[in-house]
């Protein structure tokens, strides 16, 4: 018996399947992989899957969920992205990050985009991520963004679309690197006959980009990773990135500000810091000028930042770009700031402040997806077609009470890919989060994190909701 027999009851119909056009008829990029599976026995494949799981547990790559540590579920069958698709995505993602960066500079600066009627001021000022404290601040090099994670999905025709932008604290780069490393360890024969673009240097790409957040006169900036500590769900990633970038991992309590300069407390005294790659929320950065109860930040940090003595990445206030109502305006903002046509499509999205739009949405809740504009991690979402009438009523009420707080999107049939579950391959929905570093130019880490909804039919891929991941191979040819 061969692994391919595990596909016997695999169903392709109804959705765009990443691997198969028809049952037993793999798409072009997957032909080599499918053929290779023919030389494996099912129990070998199952054993390799177990070994991959053990890799996660041994490394301690776990996700804290409801106070317990869980290994991050990993599926052994890689997700492939063709050369042609990738070059389009690369261009489109880079374009998007350039536009977002210019947009942020404009919002906290001259606000030309508001003046020229591209986006209403009211919408910006009502973003939860909007920081009045940043108005008039120019970060080093005029750059707001050094790192972004942009979520992509494929619709039922296989067309790529942007689902959301994450500039606040995009998470998952460590899994991209480690998925590949475990894959090489337990399933080396899968690579045979493939020309896969490497991802091991991704943390170094990030380090290069972070140098652009340093005060302009600093030539060899001292960078630190600021973590909220080991009780954070992504602590593993913070340690991994610090280690792989070769920079110290610090907590807020390790840092002090003196004369508007940031220092780290060492065994002998205080060393200066030039760039803080922060993995804590904007409002926690500084108890003196932001949230007074913050125990994670550094008193006086914002003063040092405004004085131009330290870089913070991404700049505080970038959260407005994550707002799902701002997302609606992104195509217009790309045209306005770059003078280019958007390369990547988005998902059709309704704002709910206009009464007519709102009524249309409320009447069609059973076919739409409703999201909180500042939600993340798969929380605060109503998937209309899967929801109960009661859940829809709850969301309808929330929308009426706070129309600015929600958007509605058409339900996209996310593409599916085979996932090894209980000894068979089953079709599960997936998305893709590529990571973009923005130093001299935007650079996209080849591939990204393919997230898998492990529940049958589920559209929620977030790891905080029990999602898993796949290694993602960008094929060089």
């Amino acid at each position, binding site marked *: 018996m061969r692994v391919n027999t595990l596909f016997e009851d695999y169903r392709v119909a109804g959705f765009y399947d990443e691997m198969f056009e028809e049952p037993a008829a793999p798409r072009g990029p997957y032909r080599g992989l499918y053929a290779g599976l023919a030389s494996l026995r099912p129990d070998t494949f199952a054993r390799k899957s177990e070994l991959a799981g053990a890799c996660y547990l041994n490394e301690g790559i776990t996700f*804290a969920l409801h106070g317990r540590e869980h290994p991050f579920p990993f599926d052994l069958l890689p997700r492939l992205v063709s050369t042609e698709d990738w070059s389009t995505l690369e261009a489109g993602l880079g374009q998007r990050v350039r536009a977002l960066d210019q947009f942020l500079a404009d919002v906290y600066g001259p606000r030309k985009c508001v003046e020229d009627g591209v986006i209403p001021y009211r919408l910006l000022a009502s973003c939860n991520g909007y920081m009045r404290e940043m108005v008039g601040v120019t970060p080093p090099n005029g750059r707001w963004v050094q790192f972004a994670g942009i979520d992509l999905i494929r619709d039922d025709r296989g067309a790529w679309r942007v689902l959301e932008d994450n500039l606040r604290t995009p998470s998952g780069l460590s899994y991209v690197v480690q998925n590949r490393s475990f894959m090489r360890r337990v399933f080396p024969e899968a690579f045979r006959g493939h020309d896969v673009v490497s991802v091991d240097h991704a943390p170094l790409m990030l380090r290069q980009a972070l140098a652009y957040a340093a005060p302009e006169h600093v030539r060899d900036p001292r960078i630190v990773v600021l973590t909220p500590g080991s009780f*954070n769900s992504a602590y593993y990633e913070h340690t991994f990135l610090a280690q792989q970038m070769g920079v110290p991992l610090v907590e807020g309590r390790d840092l002090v500000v003196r004369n508007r300069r940031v220092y780290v407390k*060492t065994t002998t005294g205080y060393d200066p810091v030039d760039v803080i790659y922060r993995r*804590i929320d904007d409002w926690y950065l500084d108890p003196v000028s932001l949230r007074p109860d913050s*125990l994670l930040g550094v008193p006086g940090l914002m003063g040092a930042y405004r004085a131009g003595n330290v870089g913070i990445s991404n700049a505080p206030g970038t959260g407005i770009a994550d707002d799902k109502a701002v997302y609606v305006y992104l195509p217009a903002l790309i045209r306005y700031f770059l003078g280019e046509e958007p390369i990547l499509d988005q998902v059709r999205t309704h704002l709910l402040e206009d009464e007519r739009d709102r009524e249309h949405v409320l009447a069609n809740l059973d076919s739409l997806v409703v999201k909180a504009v500042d939600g993340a991690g798969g929380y605060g979402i109503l998937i209309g077609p899967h929801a109960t009438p009661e859940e829809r009523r709850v969301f309808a009420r929330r929308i009426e009470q706070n129309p600015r707080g929600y958007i509605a999107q058409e339900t996209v049939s996310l593409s599916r890919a085979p996932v090894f579950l209980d000894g068979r391959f089953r079709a599960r929905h997936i998305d893709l989060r590529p990571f973009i570093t923005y130093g001299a130019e935007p650079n996209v880490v080849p591939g990204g994190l393919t997230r898998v909804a492990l529940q049958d039919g589920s559209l929620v891929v977030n790891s905080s909701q029990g999602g898993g991941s796949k290694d993602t191979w960008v094929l060089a040819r």
Partner: protein
Amino acid sequence: MTMLARVADSLYWMARAIERADTYARLLEVSHAMTLESSDANGAGRRTVWEPLVEITGDLEKFLTTHRRADERSVAWFLSFSNANPNSVISCLQRARQNAHAVRDLLPTDVWEALNAVYLDLRSWPAGRISREGVYPFSRQVRRASALLQGLMDQGMRHDASWHFLRMGRYLERAEKTARLLEVKFHLIAPSDPVVMPGADLHQWRSLLRSVGADEAYLQLDIGLGSPREIARFLVVDDRFPRSVAFCLDQVSDAVDALVSGGEMLAGATPIALIAAAREELADETAVPWDGALGVAMDRVQRRCNDIDAAIAASCFAYPSGREGGQQRAQAARQAQN
């Protein structure tokens, strides 16, 4: 960049915790072996073996609040898997793992994996296994993990500040525990004439050596069976045996020197003077009482070790905003990672 104060603190305590787990696993194994052959293991063993064992760990009072009496079962559990005992092997390994977690970016991946693996494996042991199989498999696993970790650190890390802080923690812990072991055992066996090896207590003396893994090394000294004094001298001042008090203090001293000359520790700091003083007291062998009074000297060594520990903490680990609290943890857990 000079090492972060908090990082140095974590490395130091990680090494101390691993060393402590190793020590207690050895003690447990030797005590178990001693009582196996005696006719009424629990009755006689209680006074001669199990209670002194808990006393060596310094946790007898705590032990007696939760256990009625010291016997094989209660002590083995208290020192191996008890969550109530902050110094049980499992608690030590948990603490070591937490500290390692806090400095993961500085540790070789292999070190983290080995520590994580031994912790997870012991955690998965069914509750009754240690009394069913005896302590040997348990002790062996802990000792091997400790040796593996030490080898991985020695061979996989640059011998830089991180490594020296680890070394400092390991050897200071070891110096203190060897002194403690001698204090309690000398009180218990109390040789009437320290120059003659008493035939009656021969197995006691051998066990003492064995509890610090010194039995084979000692017998290679070419001094025959020696005497209680020779044994004590070996464990206190032999400068080539890695578990003797003197050897350990020399290692701590070397580590401090290296840190100071590397600019990772302030010159002229009190730890240097304290270590020198402790070492000085052992330098003149004739000044050390090798009889029943050795306990007093060993008590002084332990106090010196505590002072050194406090001085190191004051010089190197003090960082601006204090230690992590519950509220900070709650905030940390809330930070969105999108």
